[in-house]
Structure formats: structure tokens, C-alpha cells
């Protein structure tokens, strides 16, 4: 997928001015955060499970080479073919070759962020295949030629009216005067259209939430059941998964399953959790005749030796974006690549280079909510700070920003100058902003105050209060 991350600032400005997008975001994102909070409250062991989840992933990553080999051995034993793809190009070639050998014409797909990452659809379409996304949200954006704007709710940026207009435009051969007012009517129409695709597909491609070394199984979770029809009806099932999806055992998967849906949608568990192992067995009347597992690296192994190893614990629940003040204001497309929100701000520079994605780690207020809600306890703000440092050392930080930082640093390193300055400025600002308690406009900082107010300082400085405290002066 091509990145528009360098244009983040322009993207974000456009998103803030897009009334349709703002309406769509205001309808969904707050609900997801509230439901997570309720689900967490309903499971007293939730915090302890987060600690377990983190330990499982840390252990697995430390032995990732061996777990992958073990997974390969067990999956092969069950009849799967396991393929390793060092790069996105390798993954595209491997999958296109499997489709070609199968003589495929129609390919159905379950939801897979990695397939977005490697640009799979365009490649397969270029090879003459009809590729059909079957997750309803993915289908909605596929027919619009868009990319996902959220990792679990890919069409979160669309309103119901837009969906109706698209269906009327694209679903030819249906009655023009049909009623499409209720979401149930829209879902029924999509179900009918996609049912034909499920039944005629030659190859089904799914992602994987987990790969299990113990049994050579891959796991997907869905609420629609689309992933199950995708992998059970065609002759060939292809699983596309990245290296960090590995867990040792079924019990380890249990722990992550207990965290995943609660963090993502606030459900106790997703409606369907499916463990697939190899192709259909002798005597099975259904299921695929062949099963392939394609394991993608695409730059992840390079993170293992760095501070960014922690980001490989991510189980793609989307909680960080649902709770992010920046994401919920601008949506996912502004981030310009596959993974939006805080996780995207950390992962995107790692996968496409900090030079192209330098704006993303800066698109954070460092409020810390993402880290607070991350089921895998990934220190997202800390990792964003790492990227800011790298950007600064690489000289990618804009000149004005660098000069500002230099000026700040030279004052901050001289406590006497700093205290004198603050002691003088604070009462002045406090007096100027006394009437409303905040500044709606500031000279030289219009860009900053356009979308927020600066609180006016109140009372005395911390240093002054501290000096009194130490001297025993009552407040």
C-alpha cells in the first residue's frame, strides 16, 4: 500500500473540516471505549490477565525462531504447506503462485490487515483474479476504492447514507425502488450478494489472530462468520500471518482470547473463534482440499533487537485508537498508511521508515491513555518519544521546531534564568487571562489555539509553593 503519511498535517486538517467524517466518528468511537470499560469491570482478573498476556508474548518473541520451526513442523504434519515470506513482494508472489496453480478465478477474503500491508488485492487483480472482501466493513471500503480507517472497524468513517448510495450505485440488477432505510436491509442485501461469491470462490484467504506452535493451528476471530465461509467453502485456504502472531499453546491462546474482544469491542468473546489445522481430513465431507500458511516478516525481525520489540506484542484490538484524542478527532485515513492511531504511530515508522512517517509519532498529546488500555501493556508514548529522538538526531525535525527546542533547552538548563522568567511571566499571563481562565487566541501560536484553548496560569509557581512548604509556611 502506498503511504500518504508525509502529508499527515494536510490530511488531518482536511479530516477536521470533513463534516460527514466527524459525524461518523462521533457515532462509533466513544461507544467502543465505553463498552471496553464495562467489559473490563465485569472480569476482576482482567489486569492480572494483561500481565499474563504480556509475559506470554515476551517469552514467545524471545524464542520466536524456534516456535516458528515448531509451528511449521506441526502444520506440515497436519497437511498444510508453510511458506516464509521475508518481504511484502515475496508474500504477493507466493500467494499469486498458489492461486495460479489452483486455477483460481474468484478469491474471497476474510479481514486481514497484513494483506493491506502487502498490497495483496491489487496484485491479485493485476494477475486477472476477482478478489472479494467478505467482512462487511472491508466490502464497503473495497467497493469505494478506499482503505480501512480502523483496524477492527474498517468502515468506521462511513455513515449509513453513504452505504445506501454505494449499494444503489453498484448492486445492479436489483429493484431500483427497493427499501434500504434500516441497517438490517443493507446487511441483508450485502449478505445476498456475498453469498454467491462464497459459493463460487476457488480460493479463500484469511489472516490470523494467533498461530499455535503446539498444534500447528491458526486462529481467526469474527462476529460475522465471514472468515469461516471464506475458509470452509473454497478448494484452497490460504492463511496470511505475520511472524509475531505466534503463541506456544492452546492455553496461551485462551489468555489472549480473554483479553482481545473485551479490549476491542467490549464483548466477552467474539461470536466466532475458529482454530484451523491443515486441510480437510480423510472422510471429511467439507472444508478445503489444500491449506497454505504464509508467514510474513516484512521488517519485523529487525525490531527484535531494538526498543521497538515491545510493539510486536500487539494483538490488533484497536483499543489504543478508540481511546486516542487524536485518532477520534481525525479518523484513520489521515495517518496515511495501513495502521492508524497510536499503534500506527509506532509501527508505521518501523515498517516504512521514520523519514516518511515522521509526523506520526508527533501526532500525540502523550496523554497516556493508549498505554493505559493496551491489553499487551505496550509503552506506546515511550516508543513514540523514541521515534521523536531518532527524527531529531537524523535532522528531519523542521528548522523552526529545532530552534524552538534549542531556545527552550538553553533556558531549561539554567535554573536561575528559568525561575526568574517564569516568576515574571506567570502573574502577567494570569492577569491577562483572568476573565475567562483561558486564552482562545495567542500571538504567534494561532495554529495551536485554533483547535484548543491554553489554560491561564493560576496562583503562584510550584517552586515558590515548594520553598514555602520546606520553610514550614502554612498554605
Amino acid at each position: 500500500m502506498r503511504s500518504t503519511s508525509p502529508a499527515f498535517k494536510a490530511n488531518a486538517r482536511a479530516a477536521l473540516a470533513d463534516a460527514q467524517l466527524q459525524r461518523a466518528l462521533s457515532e462509533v468511537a466513544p461507544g467502543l471505549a465505553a463498552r471496553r470499560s464495562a467489559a473490563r469491570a465485569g472480569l476482576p482478573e482482567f489486569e492480572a490477565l494483561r500481565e499474563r498476556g504480556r509475559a506470554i508474548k515476551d517469552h514467545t518473541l524471545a524464542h520466536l525462531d524456534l516456535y516458528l520451526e515448531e509451528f511449521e513442523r506441526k502444520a506440515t504434519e497436519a497437511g498444510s504447506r508453510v511458506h516464509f515470506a521475508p518481504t511484502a513482494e515475496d508474500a504477493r508472489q507466493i500467494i499469486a503462485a498458489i492461486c495460479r496453480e489452483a486455477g483460481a478465478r474468484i478469491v474471497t477474503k476474510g479481514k486481514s490487515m497484513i494483506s493491506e500491508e502487502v498490497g495483496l488485492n491489487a496484485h491479485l487483480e493485476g494477475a486477472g483474479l476477482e478478489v472479494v472482501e467478505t467482512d462487511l466493513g472491508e466490502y464497503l471500503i473495497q467497493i469505494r476504492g478506499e482503505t480501512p480507517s480502523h483496524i477492527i472497524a474498517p468502515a468506521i468513517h462511513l455513515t449509513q447514507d453513504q452505504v445506501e448510495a454505494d449499494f444503489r450505485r453498484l448492486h445492479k440488477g436489483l429493484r431500483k425502488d427497493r427499501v434500504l432505510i434500516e441497517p438490517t436491509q443493507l446487511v441483508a442485501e450485502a449478505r445476498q450478494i456475498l453469498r454467491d461469491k462464497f459459493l463460487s470462490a476457488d480460493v479463500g484467504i484469511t489472516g490470523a489472530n494467533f498461530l499455535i506452535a503446539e498444534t500447528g493451528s491458526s486462529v481467526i476471530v469474527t462476529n460475522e462468520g465471514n472468515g469461516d465461509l471464506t475458509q470452509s467453502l473454497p478448494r484452497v485456504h490460504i492463511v496470511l500471518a505475520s511472524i509475531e502472531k505466534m503463541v506456544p499453546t492452546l492455553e496461551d491462546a485462551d489468555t489472549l482470547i480473554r483479553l482481545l474482544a473485551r479490549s476491542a469491542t467490549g464483548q466477552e468473546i467474539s461470536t466466532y473463534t475458529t482454530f484451523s489445522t491443515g486441510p480437510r481430513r480423510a472422510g471429511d465431507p467439507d472444508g478445503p482440499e489444500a491449506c497454505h500458511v504464509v508467514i510474513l516478516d516484512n521488517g519485523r525481525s529487525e525490531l527484535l533487537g531494538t526498543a521497538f520489540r515491545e510493539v510486536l506484542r500487539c494483538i490488533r484490538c484497536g483499543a489504543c485508537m478508540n481511546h486516542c484524542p487524536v485518532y477520534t478527532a481525525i479518523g484513520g485515513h489521515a495517518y496515511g498508511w495501513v495502521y492508524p492511531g497510536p499503534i500506527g504511530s509506532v509501527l508505521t515508522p518501523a515498517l516504512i521508515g521514520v523519514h516518511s512517517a515522521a509526523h506520526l509519532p508527533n501526532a500525540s498529546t502523550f496523554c497516556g491513555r493508549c498505554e493505559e488500555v493496551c491489553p499487551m501493556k505496550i509503552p506506546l508514548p515511550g516508543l513514540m518519544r523514541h521515534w521523536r529522538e531518532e527524527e531529531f538526531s537524523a535532522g528531519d525535525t523542521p528548522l523552526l521546531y529545532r530552534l524552538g527546542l534549542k531556545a527552550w533547552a538553553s533556558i531549561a538548563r539554567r535554573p536561575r534564568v528559568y525561575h526568574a522568567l517564569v516568576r515574571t511571566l506567570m502573574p502577567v499571563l494570569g492577569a491577562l487571562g483572568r476573565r475567562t481562565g483561558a486564552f482562545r487566541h495567542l500571538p504567534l501560536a494561532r495554529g495551536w489555539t485554533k483547535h484548543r484553548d491554553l489554560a491561564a496560569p493560576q496562583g503562584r509557581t510550584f517552586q515558590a509553593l515548594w520553598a514555602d512548604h520546606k520553610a514550614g509556611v502554612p498554605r
Partner: protein
Amino acid sequence: MTEAERRREAVIARIRLGLGTYDSAARRSAVARRIATPEAPLVPERARRPADERRRQLRTFLEGQSATFLEVERAGDVPAAIARFLRSSNLPLRVRVGDDSYLRSLAWQAEPALERLSGPARGDDEVGLSHATAAVAETGTLVMASGPDNPVTLNFLPETHIVVVEEKVLVGGYEGAWERIRARFGRRAMPRTVNFVSGPSRTADIGGQLVMGAHGPRRLCVILVRD
């Protein structure tokens, strides 16, 4: 070296480089130990309750997910319960069912009007009937193992899915389900698919509003057999 082998070596070598480690006997035995004896998981209290409570949990969770939950005293009562459910839902008295020996042995002669089609599901089947391998109280989750006895397509293609659960397979947490799967298929072995089903199919992809029956069944009916 073939292209596939080259790619495999590249991924494994890069991971070892990243980890700053190599293939050692100590690391291998750590991995083998972990797989042979899965770490005792943290099983939530709600997954460790007594049998009576488990039945109530299963019912509460499934009904909360818009499933229909029926209880019958004996296996012999199942065909009548199925017929009653189909009639009350205005559905045809015709179900698609696999080669499951428990389901086959039920007293179908008591419901002569109820037609059974055997084999995997087809696109135009309206009702699928399956027999659960386990059911998990913790989240009201049915566990289905695929095979000739319970073809996987029965769980997803028909608009209505009826699942028979014997009370003796009702476990507290997911770990209990794996015990049952391992007892049946062996350690480190799985059927082609194990499906955790926790309600009828749904989506919230249009404006965040919940709609039942996205691609899988619109209706899920669970029949718990007490004996």
C-alpha cells in the same frame, strides 16, 4: 537451495540476528518444555464454578447474545423440542445433519414429520443441526469439532443453527474444552476446525448499529440435555 528454502532461511536467520541469539539446546528445551506442559493459565473465578451454576451461566450468556436456549430432561425429548422450535419460528420441518452417532440414535420416529437431510450444508439449506463437543460456561461458548459427524458448513451456511449440548460436556473455562478435545483427538492433534460459537452471526459495520445475521446464522437455538 530452492527459492522457498532461501526465504525460510532468510526469515529464521534475521530473527536470530535480531534476537542476538542462536539455535541452542537450552533454548530448544525451554520451548519443548513449554509445549509439553502448558503453563498453568490464570483461570478466572467465573470459569471455576460448580455444575449447577455453569448451566445458569451458559443460559444467561447465550440468551444475552440473542440465542434461544431450551432445556430437556432426556435425549429422547430432543426431536420434539426441535420440532416445537421450528414450528414456533415458522421454519420448515427439515434439518441438515451430519453422521453424528448420538444425534442418529435419538428417537426420531416420535416426530415423523421432521425430515433429516444428511451430509454437509448446501447454500439453500434453512436449518443445520449439530452436536457440541463441549460448552464453556465462562462466556456461553459452544465448541464444535469438524468431521463427518458434524461437518463445519452446518455451523455457518444455514440461516438457523440448532446445537444439542449434553450437560456432561459443560465445562467452566476454555481450558476444559481443550481437555475434552485432547481426550478425543490426542495431544497436539486437532480436527480440521474447532469452532467456538458464542451466539448468532452479527455485524456493527454499518454506522455502528448491531444487526444479526451478517453472513452466518441469523438464529441460534441451543438445546441442553440434562441426563
